[in-house]
């Protein structure tokens, strides 16, 4: 598939891997919390922390479609993009659409909030707690656990919205967005622009981001 020049790379494998791991981990995290498997919840949560840190670093030094600054710049064309969508006129964006950029930031913000509060959370009995809960009082830990629980609803709602949007693109606009998130590639002919930004996956930033996020996880682990 790599050799087919008609299909170009939209999502590098790091973006895809992080995305699909989150698809697996978020329901698992919810389930382990519901069932009280808190050792698993902590391990999965810590892995999620690593994934989100990686994604944030990758948003600074990753491929063009993964980076935040180009995403923010694209918000300028939101009005014309949405206007076209209203007429069921769909011109694919290379990477996230101006509308999807809001989804990306909302989801990342919800994930960061979820992880940050989870790190300090304490259960009602004082028996279970996040790895950084030693730094806060019982009352603060309880309040953060309440935020952790409430924010999960926001996260689930955003995920629902995300999936609904994918379904709308699929059924109404006849655009398959799941395929490219699996293979990473999309037909060059889908994009109107004559030149597209350089979107090559570079080796050293990838290693750097992986090492940095792993280091963050290890630092957290040292707290217990």
């Amino acid at each position, binding site marked *: 598939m790599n050799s087919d020049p008609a299909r170009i790379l939209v999502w590098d494998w790091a973006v895809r891997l992080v995305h699909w791991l989150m698809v697996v981990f978020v329901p698992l995290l919810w389930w382990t919390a519901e069932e009280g498997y808190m050792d698993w919840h902590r391990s999965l949560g810590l892995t999620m922390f690593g994934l989100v840190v990686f994604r944030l670093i990758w948003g600074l030094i990753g491929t063009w479609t993964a980076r935040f600054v180009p995403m923010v710049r694209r918000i300028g064309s939101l009005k014309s993009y949405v206007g076209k969508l209203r007429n069921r006129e769909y011109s694919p964006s290379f990477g996230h659409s101006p509308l999807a950029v809001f989804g990306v930031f909302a989801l990342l913000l919800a994930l960061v909030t979820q992880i940050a509060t989870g790190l300090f959370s304490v259960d*009602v*009995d*004082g*028996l279970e707690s996040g790895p950084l809960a030693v730094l806060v009082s019982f009352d603060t*830990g309880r309040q953060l656990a309440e935020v952790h629980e409430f924010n*999960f*609803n926001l996260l689930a709602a955003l995920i629902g919205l995300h*999936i609904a949007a994918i379904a709308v693109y*699929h059924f109404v606009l006849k655009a398959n967005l799941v395929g490219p998130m699996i293979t990473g590639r999309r037909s060059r002919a889908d994009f109107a622009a004559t030149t597209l930004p350089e979107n090559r996956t570079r080796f050293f930033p990838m290693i750097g981001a992986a090492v940095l996020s792993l280091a963050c996880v290890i630092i957290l682990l040292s707290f217990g």
Partner: protein
Amino acid sequence: MKRRKIQMLVPVLAGLTLLSACGDTGETDTASETANVELANGMTVKAQIEARQAQLKNIGKAFKSISDQLKADSPDVAKIQAATAVVPKEAAGMADWFPAGTGPESGVETDALPIIWEETADFNEKVAAMQEAAAELDAAAQGGDVAAIATAFKTTGGTCKSCHDKYRLDD
């Protein structure tokens, strides 16, 4: 196709379950006449419920300090001892904290389930098991051996959980 449908289902179901779970918490705090009814021990229903909640919260606080220390590389045994001493004291008389009429039917906000007053003997047995474990935990703490404290702490936590799983509203 199939993959997409399954993906859609999981978070949506998760979201719905949680939202519906949120729905049932708001109704308990209605002003009720039974809240001020005086119990045989002289306390009102409301005061009794609030007192036991405060005492259980103190136990939770003590547990957090113990857990914090056990997580540390070099636990401060003095801090553990101070916390373990609190637990048997706060837990004393626990079986008497649940006189008839102090369940959710009182209208006062409480996570205590009505089954407490249906299976009182089993409930009291579980309370006694917790008190015994708490006393052993305190004894282990005064002994100063961190490994023994950790084991006793786990046992004590288990007695809390076995009672809460059955007799407390799942939050």
